[in-house]
């Protein structure tokens, strides 16, 4: 036992160069990630900002009980799941379809130009992009102009002030902003496919759609699978910056996601222990989701995320 340990130590010091590369990273994490984590214990305390943390009384699971009985909490869960589901079900295939269709473009220059242009919105910060989107959706905005020109509606609608549009607004703005960027991965994967496969299929008389389905899609299936699992495990997350820019009093009941709820309860309302309790519970669930996702990934593709 002792022998083993000294041996290990020896081996450890022998690779001091490698260790000296890794350890700063670990130290960095201990400082910047682990130290703040101790704060999570205020979820079990009645913490008030006016007093030092350690003087606050322990209250056990009180805050956890409080939030599970808060209707607004459940509303935020509903909103988060609602927005995530739309993004998952409708949004997930869009970059794949875009990549597939772009791949069918023959002119290399046109292909590259389209690809370049399609990334552009990704680089615009949400503070700016959200502001632009609000402009489009408001009075005299392009959306209203277009709808009225098409005869779909006869008076201006303030789209962003009607809660029933909110999930769709987040979906469309996100799609517009990120489709090109998300497609990079698929485009990269497609470019790695052996051209010989296509030639062979063509000789066999496979049509365009058949080739697209049987060769392209099948070849990039592992990529799709991994990204899908990642997307599923992130279902409790939401794009905070986006929602923060687009929310207002009128759409709040559909807009308040779990993240926004935590923010509103914490810094805005000053209920720090309460919001930390929600944060804590959210992290536990996320941990569970990641385990499930990883397990599934291992089964399906033999590849795991960690």
């Amino acid at each position: 036992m002792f022998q083993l340990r000294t041996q290990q130590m020896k081996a450890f010091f022998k690779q001091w160069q490698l260790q000296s590369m890794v350890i700063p990273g670990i130290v960095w994490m201990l400082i910047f990630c682990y130290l703040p984590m101790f704060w999570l214990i205020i979820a079990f305390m009645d913490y008030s900002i006016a007093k030092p943390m350690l003087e606050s009384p322990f209250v056990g699971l009180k805050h956890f009980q409080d939030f599970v009985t808060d209707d607004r909490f459940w509303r935020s869960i509903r909103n988060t799941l609602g927005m995530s589901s739309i993004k998952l079900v409708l949004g997930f295939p869009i970059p794949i379809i875009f990549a597939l269709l772009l791949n069918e473009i023959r002119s290399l220059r046109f292909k590259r130009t389209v690809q370049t242009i399609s990334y552009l919105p990704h680089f615009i910060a949400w503070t700016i992009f959200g502001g632009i989107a609000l402009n489009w959706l408001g009075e005299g905005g392009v959306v209203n102009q277009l709808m009225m020109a098409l005869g779909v509606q006869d008076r201006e609608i303030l789209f962003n002030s009607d809660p029933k549009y909110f999930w769709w607004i987040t979906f469309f703005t996100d799609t517009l902003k990120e489709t090109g960027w998300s497609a990079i991965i698929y485009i990269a994967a497609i470019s790695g496919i052996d051209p010989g496969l296509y030639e062979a299929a063509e000789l066999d008389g496979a049509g365009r759609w058949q080739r697209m389905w049987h060769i392209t899609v099948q070849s990039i299936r592992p990529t799709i699978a991994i990204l899908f699992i990642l997307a599923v495990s992130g279902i409790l997350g939401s794009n905070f910056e986006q929602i923060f820019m687009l929310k207002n009093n009128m759409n709040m009941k559909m807009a308040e996601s779990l993240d926004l709820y935590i923010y509103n309860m914490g810094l805005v309302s000053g209920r720090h222990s309460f919001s930390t309790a929600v944060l804590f519970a959210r992290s536990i669930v996320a941990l569970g989701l990641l385990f499930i996702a990883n397990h599934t990934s291992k089964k399906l593709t033999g590849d795991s995320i960690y």
Partner: protein
Amino acid sequence: MKRYSLKKSLTAVLAIMLSLSLAACSSNSGNNESAPTAQPTDSATEPQNEATLNPEEAAWKLDTSPVDLTWFVGANWYAHTWGDSLTSKYITEKTGVNVKLEVPSGEANEHITLMMTSGQLPDLISMGSWETAVKKLWEGDHVYALNELADQYDPYFYKVAGDGTLKWYRQENGNTYGVPNDSYSPNLMHETGMTAANQTFLVRKDLYEEMGSPDLSTPEGFLSALQLLKDQYSEYKGQPISPFFAQGNVPYGMTEYLQNLLAVPHEKDGKVYDRVTDPEYVTWLKTFRTAYERGLINVDFLVDSDTQVEEKTNNARYFMMVREWSGMTAVNPMLAASANPDSYYIAVDGPQNSSGDSAKLFPGNMDGWMVTMISKSTKNPERAIRFLTYLASEEGQRDLFLGKEGETWETVDGKPQLKADMVSLIDSDIEKLEKEYGVLDTYWMMRNPVIVNQWRPEKAPVIKQMEDFANAQADIDSGIYKGLDPLGDSEVAVAWSRISQNWEEVMPELITAKDEAAFDKIFASFLERRDSYGFQQVVEYRQAELDARKAKMAD
């Protein structure tokens, strides 16, 4: 080979950069850490001070050696600096105090809350008196008790701070932690007739008159005026008209301000009144619902961003507004000077209760606007209290408001008066006035209206009309009812914040309800939810708070 050496040199550069970064970081943190170790109280100088302290004379004159004070102003839009304008240079020269103004980029309340958790605060802090962080600064002992500092360093403070305000902000432990600006006491308002009443009902003058000055004070009149507007004036002088705007939408314009216009009482038979359920108020909410149902108003007033509101205001695109007139001081003269000189806004009687009582507006109160505090992180509490005392004194007020004698103001008939070229700048280039000279309302953190209003130049008639109208409707004794609601993170405060946040969501639902039955249902379910959130506790809290305030006023 070439590539290799390039890599190597790049690596070297990066390595240097990284090491520089670490060095800079550590030297900086070194600086910061040295700050708190310097103890505020310097016992060696204390006895000497006490010997010369005179409660009848300002103590700042005792020490005018240069000192730096950081001053946090809790308003992220505040854009003035110290040290560039004539006034600030003059004051620094005079007192030796060089101020470094600091402004948060985000919410002031959040910022100070965060700084509190870390225990490092700026020397002076000015925060909105309604902010939850203010109470926490006091409770958490993060700021000095001003009376203790005054006893120790500058008893003249008592002379200038005014016993009334000190008492108003005195806490249960007998200490006062902050000095307010823009604080109005009822006695003073009764005496001078000057109030800070601000919540007005405004209409666009030319449009209003062309419509035949319709009655807007009854639901029927209001609706028929809106109908007329829709039928004949939905576009006016080449612009689309937005019928209605309520400032600060739900919590302010559509709740408190509207209730004040309707003269909804604050108190009935010694009990704090539940104003939201007042039948007159509910009637008017229903009127707005009807207007929405008929397509007479849109919900733009509930969701427009500031920019959109400003866009519409600047172009006089609103027909009527529930709005503070002070927010119109820049716009109204501009409109009056535009191509449509009558497109400016005038105050008229807006919605009234069924007995036609005139509005009962909030007159301003003892709380004032912002409170200024001295943090315990400061190394110079002595200079800080003396500086505050100076700024609160008549001399300091005059220096801040008028600048330097001979340069920006002169004495006319024994009274200080702003020079004519300064006055003309108010209309032509207020930015220059504030940036270069820094007079009038540039540095308002310690502004005492009682003192400075005597020096304020006469206002333009288009502004005066609104001011006079509001003054006449001010309910001077109602200042005491402002802000009775619990703040902070106590159980009752949480209950209240849940209720008020819910109200912000419910109100738009009420206005957009498809019919009256739906309205009643939504309203009833709000009341139910309110009770389940703990409204009863809030009622009790409000009552206790009011009783306490009355006791303080009687004192």
